[in-house]
């Protein structure tokens, strides 16, 4: 039965409407994953040397054992962020004479096929074979493998269970991350507990008696059963669909009222963003980019006064991330009701003005949030502002130009991480001018030694685009009128 289900999923993949595109994406993704896995293998092979460097004079195996639990904690965080819930469209199967347990078995089995489950083995097996096997023999080696497998699968089913149970509830995610952070704090800063000591304790126990590793199978087995029974109890259409049935309030955004229809359109799109899973997580992630500057500015080599490229790049990203991240999929976000937008009394120029209003709103909030970076020097703030103007003037216009050429719909209810739906050639091409544009203006002047002028030029050109926005709205509108049938057609093919 499980095999039949797998075969049908296989067919679903090959017979879906945009197979060609998803194969290309799978291949790119596959190469990317392969690259990471090869890196892991290399790290594992030289792990004894690396550990010797980091912890000089310490027994290599005990420092390895000390690190293992940290690795699995980190693994848990990563999984919680990125691991996908296995998606079988269970709806067509629930009414057929297929046992519930068979469907659940399939879901559990297919979920194991993930790079997250391969990585721990790639990272440890070569090391274990190199160090443990010759020194302690096969039984200890096998004990280690069993222990690592048990921890890997525990993490796997634990994160699946948590994700399913909470269905993307942001609070649970925060509590979860906070408790792991708290654990790390108690360990590293307060020295009250020692995870590495505990980790070492477990694995040195296994060295003494390899049968102890079977004890680790107990938490794995229990979380597997918890997950199993949770699924079994909740494999109903209505409960899998939406678990929360709280009252939805009709929230209004008074600030936007003053902009008339344009404001209404922007307010509606804000509701789109915050009431749908994929758009919400895309936007929340773009707010996290506010911290991007810390990576550069705290680094003495990159953030020094003489380095001018860091603030340009950071400013571009931090004030423009919403424009890039959300804008690249426009108007796919609205694909499910695009026909309605076309048939209603909405003028095309109002439609575009509302997009600019939305961009302005988010970019301004981001600019305000980046003001504290003034701590690293006034120049940074000035450069951020110049990039802000560039983003709003040039990049916003560019993004909308490409939006007129994006025919791929987006299902708002799916989560955002590793979600490649709606990604097409236009997104790849789009990113080039968005990131290179300001440098084309900046570099020639900079090389001539006119650094301040170079910064000013970027800002002035951005400002120029903002002042002439009326013209751009008209150009985009007439362009949209030519493309509208194609866009609507594409959005109807889900």
């Amino acid at each position, binding site marked *: 039965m499980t095999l039949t289900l797998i075969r049908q999923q296989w067919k679903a993949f090959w017979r879906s409407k945009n197979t060609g595109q998803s194969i290309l994406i799978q291949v790119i993704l596959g190469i990317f994953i392969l690259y990471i896995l090869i890196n892991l293998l290399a790290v594992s092979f030289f792990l004894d040397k690396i550990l010797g460097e980091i912890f000089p004079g310490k027994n290599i195996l005990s420092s390895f054992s000390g690190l293992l639990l940290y690795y699995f904690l980190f693994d848990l965080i990563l999984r919680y962020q990125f691991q996908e819930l296995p998606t079988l469209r269970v709806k067509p199967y629930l009414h057929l004479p297929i046992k519930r347990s068979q469907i659940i078995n399939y879901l559990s089995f297919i979920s194991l096929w993930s790079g997250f489950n391969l990585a721990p083995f790639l990272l440890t097996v070569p090391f274990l074979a190199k160090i443990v096997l010759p020194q302690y023999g096969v039984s200890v080696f096998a004990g280690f493998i069993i222990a690592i497998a048990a921890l890997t699968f525990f993490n796997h089913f634990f994160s699946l269970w948590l994700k399913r149970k909470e269905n993307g509830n942001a609070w649970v995610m925060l509590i979860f991350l906070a408790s792991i952070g708290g654990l790390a704090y108690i360990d590293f800063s307060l020295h009250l507990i020692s995870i590495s000591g505990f980790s070492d304790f477990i694995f040195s126990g296994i060295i003494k008696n390899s049968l102890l590793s079977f004890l680790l199978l107990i938490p794995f087995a229990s979380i597997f059963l918890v997950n199993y029974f949770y699924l079994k109890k909740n494999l109903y259409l209505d409960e899998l669909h939406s678990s929360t049935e709280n009252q939805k309030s*009709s929230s209004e955004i008074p600030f936007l009222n003053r902009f008339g229809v344009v404001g209404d359109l922007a307010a*509606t799109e804000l509701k789109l963003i915050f009431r749908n899973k994929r758009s919400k997580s895309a936007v929340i992630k773009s707010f996290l980019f506010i911290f991007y500057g810390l990576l550069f500015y705290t680094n003495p080599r990159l953030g020094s006064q003489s380095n001018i490229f860091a603030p340009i790049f950071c400013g571009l990203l931090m004030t423009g991330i919403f424009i890039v991240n959300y804008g690249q999929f426009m108007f796919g976000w609205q694909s499910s009701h695009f026909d309605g937008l076309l048939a209603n009394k909405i003028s095309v120029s109002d439609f575009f003005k509302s997009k600019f209003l939305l961009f302005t709103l988010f970019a301004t909030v981001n600019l305000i949030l980046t003001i504290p970076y003034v701590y690293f020097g006034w120049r940074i703030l000035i450069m951020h502002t110049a990039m802000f103007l560039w983003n709003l003037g040039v990049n916003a216009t560019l993004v909308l130009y490409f939006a007129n050429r994006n025919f791929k719909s987006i299902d708002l209810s799916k989560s955002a991480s590793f979600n490649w739906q709606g990604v097409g050639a236009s997104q790849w091409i789009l990113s080039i001018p968005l990131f290179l544009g300001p440098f084309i203006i900046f570099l020639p002047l900079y090389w001539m030694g006119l650094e301040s002028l170079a910064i000013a030029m970027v800002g002035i050109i951005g400002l120029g685009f903002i002042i002439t926005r009326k013209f751009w709205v008209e150009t985009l509108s007439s362009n949209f009128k030519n493309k509208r049938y194609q866009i609507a057609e594409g959005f109807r093919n889900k």
Partner: protein
Amino acid sequence: MIQIQSLQKIYNGVVVVNIPELNIRQGETVGLIGNNGAGKTTLFRMMLDLIRPEKGEVLSKDQNVANSDSWKDYTASFLDEGFLIDYLTPEEYFYFTGGLHDLSKAHIDSELIKFTDFFNGEILNRGKYIRDLSKGNQCKVGVASCLLQNPEVLMLDEPFANIDPSTQIRLKNMIRDINREKHLTTIISSHDLNHVTDVCERILLMEKGMIIKDIETNQNTLLELEEYFSVLQ
């Protein structure tokens, strides 16, 4: 009101709509019927400028709908759930579409009272997004939003399909009343011959993209149509 001239739509070499000429006068209630694949929805979509015809044009008040937006001022339409903004509550959606026609919230609220029976307590103040409503209730939202806009032209694609019998009857009465009071031009498609002959003064029967019958409704129309559809099998 609406004129169609040598309109053609071709998909993959198959002509799905082919209408040499059609005139819909102001105040007419037109029923569009035909089996699946006859081209009803495609015709609607071309009348609303959602797809580009291969040939010909649709004129609304003598303006080509593809070249001007002015028809949107007086045309309200509901073809499918793709017309609804599904992450809004019904109230928000009514305020939104009403706002596009410069109707105030207070005005919309007072207009919505007229729909109390039609909504049957399942739409307003339920605290649900449109996406969480049943198909029938979504249809009610779409139809109500059309009527709120106070249109001169109303287009509905199979409005009776998903709603319960009581609501079907209420909808029929509503359309008839509005038509009498406001002289609305209405185009409705349906598979329910009873309802269509009940509401519409004129019936267009489509087959393979062509309008093969164009009849004024009288007491024999229902029989005539039933005969046509039973022969087809």
